[in-house]
């Protein structure tokens, strides 16, 4: 029905623009808020959330109590939810989406129920509850299979024969197994499982920044003690806090090296903590270690001279800059096996490389040719206008960034042809002729001509000139 038709029928209809992206964001927030029921929860699709409550129902006085609590908490936030609880994700999904019960009571398949009981619960659900492809669903309908009960009653072998393709049959059986708890369904929770954690609850909501820092120190004490017992060092930590109005904040830091130095970790957090708004007060704070690596116990130095050893390591600086500027801003040069200049090196941001192999190692026995490369590279190369004799002489002058430079001496060409093994099935890139030119204004540049003037397939378009690097 079009909106105008609807308004004609009911003039007082209230309308609002749909904002699907906002919905998705809010749903994610809700999923992370659901961590109060269980650490494992995530968004499933546009309008459903799942929570894995295995082992946490007793905290809410059983399964009924848990569902009642969830329903009440959501109602307080202004949401109406349809809840269901079952032994498998597939069954819970089916019950929550396809049981239309007038009574407000949420459907539950108790955890102690047997296979026949489970079948009984699912008997009357439609086949669409299996999360199958549309075509498969319509095929099942055409075959007269409307409910899961009908599907379950059929022998598996005969079911297979009814489908045109074995894939379709397999998908139906696969989903059926999942809903009957015969097959596991992997689920990815929103927050990765934590290795070490520490939690602090406050009797009264916390407001002051100073108090938060003190509390963080206590959490760090606890976590570093846990790490030390297991000979581990943290690589990434998350500091989470829950406010009394239901909002949450998470601060994540990473370290370049396994670390359990309290002072260093605290310094990394300190700057970000100052930006946190306490709002209506903070109820709970927690510290999680999501990634840890082995770190052996260190000998405590006897002399004060070595006390500052850790603070003199460049990793402390790298950690600090990474957490301040963002991990992508700090890089290390890494050599790659390629002769195309811009491909021969990459910037890694993960960890410092051991050593960089030289391009052509020159040994005393064979003083080989040194391939001359610029120390500064323009990436991507910039286009230049060039005055150059045909077909492959170095340029006489070139114009770059609206400045014309006259070439006095030059060196070249050094021809770098394409890497055919990278370009299988693509349009081949053109060979490049590199020239090292020295200009009358001073300065030595690395120019190249993309393509050749002669040659059969290069005739389509004239070659272009680029500037690629600087020799100082």
């Amino acid at each position, binding site marked *: 029905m079009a909106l105008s038709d609807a308004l004609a029928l009911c003039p007082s209809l209230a309308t609002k623009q749909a904002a699907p992206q906002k919905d998705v964001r809010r749903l994610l927030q809700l999923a992370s808020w659901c961590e109060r029921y269980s650490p494992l929860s995530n968004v499933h699709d546009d309008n459903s959330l799942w929570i894995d409550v295995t082992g946490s129902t007793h905290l809410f006085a059983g399964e009924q109590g848990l569902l009642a609590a969830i329903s009440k908490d959501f109602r307080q936030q202004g949401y109406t939810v349809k809840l269901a609880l079952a032994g498998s994700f597939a069954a819970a999904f089916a019950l929550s989406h396809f049981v239309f019960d007038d009574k407000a009571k949420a459907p539950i398949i108790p955890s102690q129920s047997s296979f026949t009981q489970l079948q009984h619960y699912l008997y009357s659900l439609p086949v669409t509850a299996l999360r199958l492809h549309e075509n498969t669903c319509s095929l099942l309908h055409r075959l007269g299979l409307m409910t899961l009960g009908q599907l379950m009653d059929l022998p598996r072998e005969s079911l297979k024969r009814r489908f045109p393709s074995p894939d379709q049959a397999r998908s139906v059986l696969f989903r059926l197994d999942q809903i009957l708890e015969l097959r596991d369904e992997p689920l990815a929770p929103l927050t990765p499982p934590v290795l070490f954690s520490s939690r602090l609850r406050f009797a009264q909501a916390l407001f002051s920044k100073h108090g938060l820092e003190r509390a963080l120190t206590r959490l760090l004490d606890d976590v570093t003690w846990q790490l030390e017992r297991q000979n581990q060092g943290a690589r990434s930590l998350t500091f989470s806090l829950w406010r009394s109005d239901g909002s949450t904040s998470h601060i994540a830091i990473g370290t370049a090296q396994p670390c359990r130095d309290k002072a260093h970790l605290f310094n990394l957090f300190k700057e970000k903590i100052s930006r946190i708004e306490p709002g209506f007060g903070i109820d709970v704070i927690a510290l999680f270690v999501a990634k840890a690596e082995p770190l052996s116990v260190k000998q405590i130095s006897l002399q004060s001279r070595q006390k500052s050893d850790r603070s003199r390591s460049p990793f402390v600086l790298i950690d600090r800059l990474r957490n*301040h500027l963002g991990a992508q801003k700090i890089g*290390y040069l890494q050599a790659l096996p390629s002769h195309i200049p811009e491909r*021969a090196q990459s910037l890694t941001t993960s960890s410092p490389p051991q050593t960089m192999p030289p391009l052509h190692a020159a040994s*005393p026995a064979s003083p080989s040719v040194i391939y001359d490369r610029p120390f500064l590279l323009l990436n991507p190369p910039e286009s230049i206008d060039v005055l150059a004799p045909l077909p492959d002489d170095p340029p006489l002058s070139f114009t770059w960034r609206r400045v014309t430079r006259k070439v006095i001496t030059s060196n070249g060409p050094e021809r770098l042809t394409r890497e055919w093994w990278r370009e299988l099935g693509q349009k081949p890139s053109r060979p490049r002729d590199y020239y090292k030119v020295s200009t009358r204004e001073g300065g030595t540049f690395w120019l190249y001509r993309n393509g050749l003037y002669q040659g059969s397939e290069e005739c389509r378009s004239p070659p272009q000139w680029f500037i690629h690097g*600087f020799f100082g």
Partner: protein
Amino acid sequence: MPLENLDKLRTQIKRIEGHTAFLEGARKSLPARHPPSPSLPAWSFGAKEVDQCLEHGLAPHALHEINPLAYKDCWAALSFALALASKRASFDQRPLLWCSSRANKSEFGGLYGQGLQRFNLDPARFILIETKNDNETAFVLEEALKSASLCAVIGLIAAPGLTASRRLSLMANKGQTPALLVTKPEDTGIKNATTRWQVASLRADQSLFTTPSFPQLALPQLSWQVALTRNSQGPADKKWHLEFPSYEQPLHKSSKEAFRFALPSPFRNRKSRAAA
């Protein structure tokens, strides 16, 4: 006496600790740490006339400004900074930090590892940092100097103001780390810099240097026209033509000999060298 014993014990403990594989790995990835500067040799040029102007070489705990004479000399200034860093890196094994803003990177290009071999610098020793603007660059430089864990800090930055440069110079002093600041040609100079080098590129045909071992290379090597316009360690207002020969030296010579600054040879020697 007790100190010697302690040192002995410490080495013993280190040897015992060394057996675990992961510790070995962690140590390998960690650049070898050197004791703080007093035991290091002087940060000198290797060229006599220049070293005479600097007492005990360049000050290792101060700011050094490298200023291009004109816009076209910016790349020369950058290569001069790298050559200076290379001199220090030859005896200090700690990593080097290169910091430039995004705008500077797209204007002057990014550091290219294979080209660094001409400076006798190992690309793996560089920590590259890209910042949003010069304010952020100043922050990074300050943190890097303060950390006292680096061989040298090289920054591309428009000359910072009085307060910022004072902070930088204090941090350099505190961390015993030198900062090489490559400024813009229009900058009038950093007040707190210990030395200020004005660098211009040399025209190929003006160059007084010859390349006897590679006569087919008509191009000049790394060479600059350098003016020392400020120097709190000795006399200022000196001018030289300097080069950083990397091809001329036989490759099997030790890197310490091969990679040093050099002045042009006297006139009477030039002809014979060219003939050779």
